[in-house]
């Protein structure tokens, strides 16, 4: 192979061209494959490579296990070397930590000492003793404004805890469970109260603990606070949550339960562990100073005000007493004060003003004054005039004046009042004379009727009646005039009542219509009415001449403003009158004649309708006749006709109502058949209601009895007055079946079998044969149902079988019965369970034998062989 390559021209050419490159590639491969050389090669660039990736987090992560292992190994081998290396770092760190701890302790100690001996601290010590808490805890609780004790950062969808901060590390243990439970509580509240998705729980409170919750897109921030946190904390929470979202947005969005990504959140969450205490620094008691100042100022102000009030009160009191002294009708004799109450003594005219009424004017308290006045009559002019006004009840139209013991009266007053005044003043002190020269004495007032007449004069057509204070009108007038009169008289305040019902309203619609009816005499078929606009409206049909005349007359009628004949048809008066005269229609029929065409409508009995049909076209001028009259029937006429045509038997009662002819009572079959054929041919009878009991003749009853009972030879039947007599001899079975068969014979009142005797009993077998031979079944052709007679015969046949079985309990019994319709008999026996009655004896079979007649002498009849087999 080597030899081959050696002689290969291509290889030789390649060697010549790439000899140098091949040597370099070989060197590189050697370095790569030789670990020692490779490590040496990498070690030369390792520092530069690490330097280039120094800021790459991935490098740190990659190196972390190796570094951790190296550090562990190093410490295990030689702790001193590592301690020496860390000494410069650890020293300051430990110092800083101790310094922080001492600072906190001093602060706490300082706080405790501050409270140690104050009165408040004594109370807190008592509280600590009472509740069993430490004094420091009580101090903290009383001085704490608020403290954020825990911070939960929770993944919103899963409720998983992303990060947690706490002021007490022992609380972190169950933080993840609490986080989930908080989420569940939120869901529970939202579901329970059906909150919308946008409404989320913002806070929960338990005693002095409050959980404040800030909801974000992917996560929730919840802080547990003790005390009363400021509302600004919520804002801080919102800002922190925003910051967290910005920092961890991508990780939150794809959160798969790995919380290691959020370790960097500590720096953002820890600042939320806020705490604030009550500020106890000594400050000047500004509030106290202000309060005291206010108090002093208030006191001084109040005292000044009080003194001023007292002075003012005294002044007002003096003014009040002075006013009382100057008041006419009051004489103040003494004023004193006793135990805070003012007492005023003196005289008082009863017409003088009340002294107490002036108190308000002087802002004095009524409760602080007591009056001790004696009554007297004041004789000063003012009080005398007041007394005069009071006693004389003077009208407002008069005035008084007293001068030199003379009373001057002015104004208007009645003579009667003046007389009373003069009489009264004779006894009044201070008035010697009364001068009434200047008084205008009016004439005595008019009566009510005069005043009514003065106020209002009725028109000629109206009569006025005044009785006492009541006004009544009669006569006639327009509605408008009556309204005006009523309004005018309403000004009489002393009018007790006003009655104008008796006045005829000349322009009322009813009255106008009445006038029109009287004036125009509207023919039959014309209906007049008055519209609101007082237009006379005519409806119906009338002759042209009447219409023309009505138009003229109506215009002349007072209060009618027009005539409306739009709805009035023009009739040929002459023809219609003739028609009415010729046909004499009843009131329930209306006639319409138009251009020779006669139409009749309404209701009438058949006779008139027939008459009209025959007569109408014979009337002169009637060219065609249309009869739309509905036929009605008079019960009496129909009943009369029915009696004539039906000839009811004496025991039958007929009646007719609403087109129905009723028949009740009893009648012969013949009459009943007849009446059913005839009744509906009577005019007016639409329905025939027959409930008549049929009466049977003796012959009919006998005929039915013969058919029903089929008496055997030796038995004779007779019927007399509905009583059936049965005579002769018959076997006992036939006699026993009589009662059932007689009951179905119609018309039979009773039956008599006193003359019927039973035949002598043959032995069992013979009797059986006789009975079988005598059994006849009669059916009606084409009658598929069992008749009453068939049923009785079958029952009899059944009895025969029973007895046959009793006679021959151990053998088969063949019974042959000649019968024309044997197929039907078998069917009937089956259908009527005759078999069932025999089954208790064994098996019953029936068989049709068609040719079994010769020996029995009943040719061409069908026969039935009944076989009864007694079972062992």
């Amino acid at each position, binding site marked *: 192979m080597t030899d081959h390559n050696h002689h290969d021209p291509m290889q030789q050419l390649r060697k010549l061209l790439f000899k140098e490159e091949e040597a370099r590639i070989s060197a590189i491969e050697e370095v790569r494959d030789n670990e020692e050389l490779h490590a040496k090669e990498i070690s030369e660039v390792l520092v530069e490579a690490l330097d280039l990736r120094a800021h790459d987090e991935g490098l740190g992560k990659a190196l972390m296990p190796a570094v951790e292992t190296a550090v562990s190994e190093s410490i295990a081998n030689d702790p001193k070397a590592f301690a020496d290396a860390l000494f410069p770092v650890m020293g300051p760190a430990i110092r800083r930590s101790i310094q922080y701890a001492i600072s906190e302790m001093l602060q706490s100690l300082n706080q405790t000492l501050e409270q140690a001996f104050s009165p408040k601290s004594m109370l807190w010590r008592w509280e600590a003793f009472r509740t069993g808490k430490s004094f420091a805890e009580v101090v903290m609780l009383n001085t704490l404004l608020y403290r954020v004790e825990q911070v939960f950062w929770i*993944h919103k*969808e*899963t*409720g*998983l*805890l992303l990060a947690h901060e706490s002021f007490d590390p022992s609380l972190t243990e*169950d933080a*993840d*469970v609490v986080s*989930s*439970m908080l989420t*569940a*509580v939120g*869901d*529970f509240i*939202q*579901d329970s109260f059906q909150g919308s998705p946008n409404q989320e729980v913002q806070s929960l409170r338990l005693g002095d603990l409050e959980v404040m919750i800030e909801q974000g897109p992917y996560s929730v921030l919840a802080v547990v606070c003790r005390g009363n946190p400021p509302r600004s904390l919520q804002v801080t929470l919102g800002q922190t949550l925003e910051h967290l979202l910005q920092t961890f947005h991508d990780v939150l969005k794809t959160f*798969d*339960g*790995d*919380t*290691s990504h959020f370790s960097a959140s500590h720096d953002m969450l820890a600042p939320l562990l806020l705490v604030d205490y009550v500020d106890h620094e000594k400050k000047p008691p500004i509030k106290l100073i202000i309060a005291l100042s206010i108090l002093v100022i208030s006191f001084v102000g109040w005292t000044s005000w009080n003194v001023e009030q007292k002075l003012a009160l005294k002044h007002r009191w003096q003014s009040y007493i002075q006013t009382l002294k100057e008041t006419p009708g009051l004489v103040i004799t003494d004023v004193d004060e006793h135990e805070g109450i003012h007492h005023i003594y003196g005289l008082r005219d009863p017409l003088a003003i009340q002294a107490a009424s002036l108190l308000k004017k002087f802002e004095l308290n009524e409760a602080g004054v007591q009056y001790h006045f004696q009554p007297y009559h004041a004789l000063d002019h003012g009080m005398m005039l007041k007394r005069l006004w009071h006693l004389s009840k003077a009208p407002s139209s008069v005035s008084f004046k007293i001068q030199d013991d003379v009373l001057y009266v002015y104004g208007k007053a009645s003579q009667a009042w003046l007389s009373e005044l003069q009489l009264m003043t004779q006894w009044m002190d201070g008035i010697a004379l009364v001068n009434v020269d200047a008084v205008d004495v009016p004439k005595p007032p008019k009566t009510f009727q005069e005043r009514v007449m003065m106020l209002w004069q009725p028109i000629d057509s109206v009569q006025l009646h005044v009785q006492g204070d009541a006004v009544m009108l009669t006569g006639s007038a327009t509605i408008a005039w009556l309204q005006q009169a009523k309004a005018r008289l309403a000004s009489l305040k002393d009018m007790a009542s006003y009655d104008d019902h008796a006045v005829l309203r000349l322009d009322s619609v009813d009255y106008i219509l009445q006038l029109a009816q009287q004036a125009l005499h509207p023919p039959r078929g014309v209906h007049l009415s008055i519209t609101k606009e007082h237009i006379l409206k005519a409806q119906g049909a009338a002759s042209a001449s009447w219409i023309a005349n009505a138009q003229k007359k109506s215009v002349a009628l007072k209060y009618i403003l027009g005539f409306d004949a739009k709805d009035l048809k023009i009739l040929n008066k002459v023809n219609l009158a003739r028609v009415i005269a010729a046909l004499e229609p009843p009131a329930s029929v209306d006639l319409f004649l138009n251009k020779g065409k006669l139409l009749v409508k309404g209701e009438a009995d058949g006779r008139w309708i027939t008459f009209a049909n025959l007569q109408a076209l014979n009337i002169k001028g009637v060219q065609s006749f249309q009869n739309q009259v509905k036929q009605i029937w008079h019960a009496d006429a129909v009943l009369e006709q029915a009696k004539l045509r039906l000839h009811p038997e004496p025991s039958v009662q007929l009646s007719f109502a609403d087109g129905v002819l009723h028949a009740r009572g009893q009648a012969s079959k013949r009459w009943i058949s007849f009446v059913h054929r005839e009744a509906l041919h009577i005019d007016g009878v639409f329905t025939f209601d027959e409930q008549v009991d049929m009466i049977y003749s003796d012959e009919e009853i006998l005929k039915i009895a013969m058919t029903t009972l089929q008496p055997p030879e030796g038995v004779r039947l007779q019927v007399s007055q509905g009583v059936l007599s049965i005579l002769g001899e018959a076997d006992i079975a036939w006699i026993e079946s009589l009662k059932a068969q007689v009951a179905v014979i119609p018309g039979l009142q009773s039956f008599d079998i006193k003359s019927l005797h039973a035949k002598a009993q043959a032995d069992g077998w013979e009797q059986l044969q006789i009975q079988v031979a005598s059994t006849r079944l009669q059916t009606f052709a084409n009658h598929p149902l069992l008749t009453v007679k068939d049923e009785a015969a079958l029952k009899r046949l059944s009895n025969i079988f029973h007895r046959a079985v009793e006679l021959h309990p151990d053998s088969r019994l063949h019974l042959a019965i000649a019968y024309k319709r044997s197929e039907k008999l078998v069917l009937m026996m089956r259908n009527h369970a005759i078999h069932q009655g025999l089954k208790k004896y064994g098996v019953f079979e029936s068989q049709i034998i068609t040719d079994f007649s010769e020996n029995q002498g009943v040719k061409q009849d069908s026969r039935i062989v009944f076989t009864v087999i007694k079972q062992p």
Partner: protein
Amino acid sequence: MIQKKICVLGAAGVGKTSLIAQFVYSKFSEKYLSSMGVKIDRKIVQLESQQVNLMIWDIHGEEKFKKITSSYFRGASGVIMVADGTRPDTLSVAQNIFQRVEQDVGNIPSVWLLNKVDLEDQWCMSEGVVKQLNEKYVSVYQSSAKTGENVEQTFFNIAENMLNV
């Protein structure tokens, strides 16, 4: 550490709370179940690869007039469906609940438990039913909260299933 939320679901009285009590020590009392309809416990499971912190939501049993609050399913990474092996009707209840979970949360790992296997004389689940369940769902166990049979295995199984998703 990885955290995962799992829900334990089923009809009332199938033994959910007892199963959890076998597995964890509860911080919260059971009164939360009757009042809020949920009780939450935590269990750290050490799998081969890593530790998983299971947040176990014990959700009250579904009854005729007390439906499960579906918002409790939200964010679940897995569900443990529990039926009572002595009461066949509880299996259909569990299947109905599971349908709702799938509608609300989507397709998440599930473990099915036919509980109370210790009550042998009252056991009503035929082999056919168990076979059908095995064909339909990946993980089906017969468990007993009383004896602890398959309880721990259930939680380990669901933890592994959740991590492998």
